[in-house]
């Protein structure tokens, strides 16, 4: 049964909302690669500043992913009925399914962003 007071909005029936978090991963990846490539090819010199810039970009990306993850978690609304299968035919099943999958994609994207951040935490040169 639908939870009283929960209205089904357009974002609850949107695949785009489901893939926001991995899109942030893709943008973060591309930006890190581009900033690093341009820095090393055109600016050069101070690698410490580059690392600070990349860490800042990463923190922003993680924050955005966490936000989308939280929104997806709300859409899943697990503690309401503890449903994690969503095999039914109602609006609620579809909303919780998109929320659940979106939440897990956000978790995956969070970890993947951390993976991509490791190189500039470890490697300290442009060579």
């Amino acid at each position, binding site marked *: 049964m639908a939870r009283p007071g929960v209205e089904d909005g357009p974002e609850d029936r949107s695949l785009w909302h489901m893939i926001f978090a991995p899109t942030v991963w893709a943008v973060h990846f591309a930006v890190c690669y581009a900033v690093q490539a341009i820095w090393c090819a055109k600016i050069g010199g101070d690698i410490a500043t580059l690392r600070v810039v990349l860490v800042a970009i990463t923190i922003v990306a993680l924050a955005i992913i966490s936000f989308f993850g939280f929104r997806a978690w709300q859409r899943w609304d697990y503690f309401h009925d503890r449903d*994690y299968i*969503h095999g039914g035919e109602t609006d609620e099943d579809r909303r919780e399914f998109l929320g659940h999958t979106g939440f897990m994609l956000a978790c995956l994207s969070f970890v*993947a962003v951390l993976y991509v951040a490791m190189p500039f935490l470890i*490697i300290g040169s442009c060579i």
Partner: protein
Amino acid sequence: MTDISRIGGARRRRDQSAEDVLTPQGIYPPTEEMLAEPVDPELRKAQEERLKAVWDEPPGWRYWSAVNNSEVGVWYSLTAFGFMLIAGVLALLMRVQLAVPDNEFLSADRFNQFFTMHGSAMMFLFAVPMFEAISILLLPAFLGARDMPFPRLSAYGYWAFLIGGIFVMGSLLFDAAPSSGWFMYPPLAIIDEGVGSDIWLLGLSFIEVASIAAAVELIVGTIKCRPPGMRINLMPLYAWYVLVVGAMILFAFPPLIAGDFLFELQRSFDWPFFDPERGGDPVLWQHLFWIFGHPEVYIIFLPSIAVAAMIVPAAARRPMLGYHWIVLSAVGTGFLSFGLWVHHMFTTGLPAMSLGFFSAASEAVVIPTGVQLFAFVATLMAGKVRMILPMLWIAGALAIFTAGGLTGVMIALAPFDWQVHDTYFIVAHLHYTLFGGMIFPIIGGIYFFYPFITKKKMSDRLGRVSFWLTFVGFNICFLPMHLTGLLGMPRRVYTYPGDIGWDWPNMISTVGSFVIAAGILVFAWDLVRPKPKQGYTERNPWGAGSLLWSHDIPDPGWGIRSVPYITSRYPLWDQPKLLERIDAGRYYIPDAEEGLRETIVTSAIDARPQHIARITGPAWCTIWAAIFTGGAFILPVFKFYLLAGLSGAAAVGAVIYWLWTSTALVPEKPMKDAGLGLRLPTYVSGPSAPGWWGVFITMLGDMTAFASLVFGVFFYWTSRPDFPPPGSPHAVPLFVGLAALCFLAAWGATLFARTQNRRHDVVTARLCLGSAAILAIVGVGVLFMSVWMPGLAPASHVYPAILWGLAIWTGAHMGVGVIMQLYCLAGSMFGKLTPRYDADLWNTTLFWHFLLITGLVTCAVMGLLPGLL
């Protein structure tokens, strides 16, 4: 992909509510009483006869004009399988050559041709087309649709594939095949004499276009042609994979097409994109190739896993454990696989930090890949497994793929890769992933779906013989290659000296390769042998739960008798009486009163019925279009540019004829009874229409190709100190600005034409369309003037070459945009496009949204960049 308008919902699109727009009326969803009501037996019989007549395949030689997904899918799969066998023979010949040291069985040049064609054919002529072929064949049945949304497009894709494939493979017979390896690295592929490289670039570009066409169709099929009630959370997992892989093709293939475009300009006109002496950079090709090439691996792998995801629940006799985990892993893999491409380029001398990004992403992709394998294993553990033959192949696939994945984790680490790069270790790794991730699941899938496709069964005994031969042979052949590689044997050498420890492993591999061949031959024989004595199979031989197994025996051609209302992930398990109601014609569109082929179009997320789509039937114009498109790609190989141009024009003509005579036709009545008390529009325009989605998705791919060209500009800027070269002239800013204004005005006029047409102001709409076309042509002219006037010579340096390349790209696209505007204008004149029936104009406007981005970005790069850099 959102559902905005709903039946009776308060949220309506502003422009749709404006005028004359019809929305579904009546009862939805159907009640149980309505479904329980019996169908009059005489009506049922009459309906069946009408449906059969409409969906019958053409008789005699006209059979080849068929466009049904069941026909095209079978041709497509058998052709791809045929190319696979040829490519397999090439592999056997190479193994014979390598069996003993200092062998002279094949010359070095022939060996080069063979390994190039083995890789190219297996990738471009087998793996990707096979996914599309099987999906065209199966997807409508999984979704309870009558056919794909654009049947003639599938047929066009198939004929293009056949022509391109024969052209590329045929070059082997003339000793003229490409010989620079399946990834065609410059400078080798550029200085290569003869037509081999051109055959590769143009022939395979042609096939890539066909692949993208199929991908567009599959995506639209998945999101718009599901049966009513099959919400996104109830979709079969197969459809999820098709959606993800289709999207990946859209973003992976275009960079390669952009690369081919640059490469062929260099081969034909000596524009120095990859020539370092004139400012070019061969590494750009490697980037563009592998942005395609690595996602390609997952484009091959995911559909096969999709097949496995249909077999595993049937074998385990329980629903898949963790449906959403599988969706997560499919979508997650789809994304992460785009962050891996540089791991093929670890030895090109990129900065360590760049390598680190790609190494890290390569390790991260293991997470979603692992998740889906664990979901399979968990389902098998939780269910009561029958070791049916398809499951045996899947089990073999899991074992082999896991081994390949583990070596993948090793070589994703740059320092390890430096040791084994370009050795047989890589050959072993990639064959483990591709055999385990593609060949085994596909063969298992053929055994599984064969009763659906031919209504007969393959032999269980032969299948087991084939499995064990292939499985054992595979490991004998490829396991020793890990060692051969670690012993230092480079790949692609045509022979090697004796006594350096490579003799025995090579001999063992050769023996193994023939054992694999025996296994594949047993399978091929079982596939094609006539089975006259065998009766028809039962309807659901594996006891599976997906809608596909509601098929009719023998095949009456109509796809599904009536389109059901779905409320479960495994309808055949969970919805009692589903089958009998489908057969009785109790559900939607059970009839073909008007003698037209129809299928039901539903909303993207909740699968609410929106529209009854009239779909196209048998035609020759698709074959002509494919032949002439082939001419436009193939003739430039032999430098027949004039003929190629004529052929291209003929192709455009054939396509216009096809569209004009069979798409977006004004219907005989605006609404139609769909059954179960629901009335649906017979014509929709804008985002409810499958055609609109087709344009949208095609243009996403087109934008990716354009983005790859722009990436090229920035790549030259970062990698080269002389870009732009000092003292070089630039594009004339005034002209570039004028061109941008023309494009903007042309776009605005097109958009205004659409709104005015809706308001019955047809005269203004026509004037706008005509002037928009003129503005676009003027814009292109001015754009070319801006690079021609200052004397930018494209053969002199990469900077003028890339400016010319961008201008050509934009000009060609504007040409298509103008043709579309004129098509709409003609439609308006001849009553094909009216204020109410305006789908073509919606699609043209959508195309122009993307075209405007192309035009303005081109102008920005040409006009503003020199000042910024």
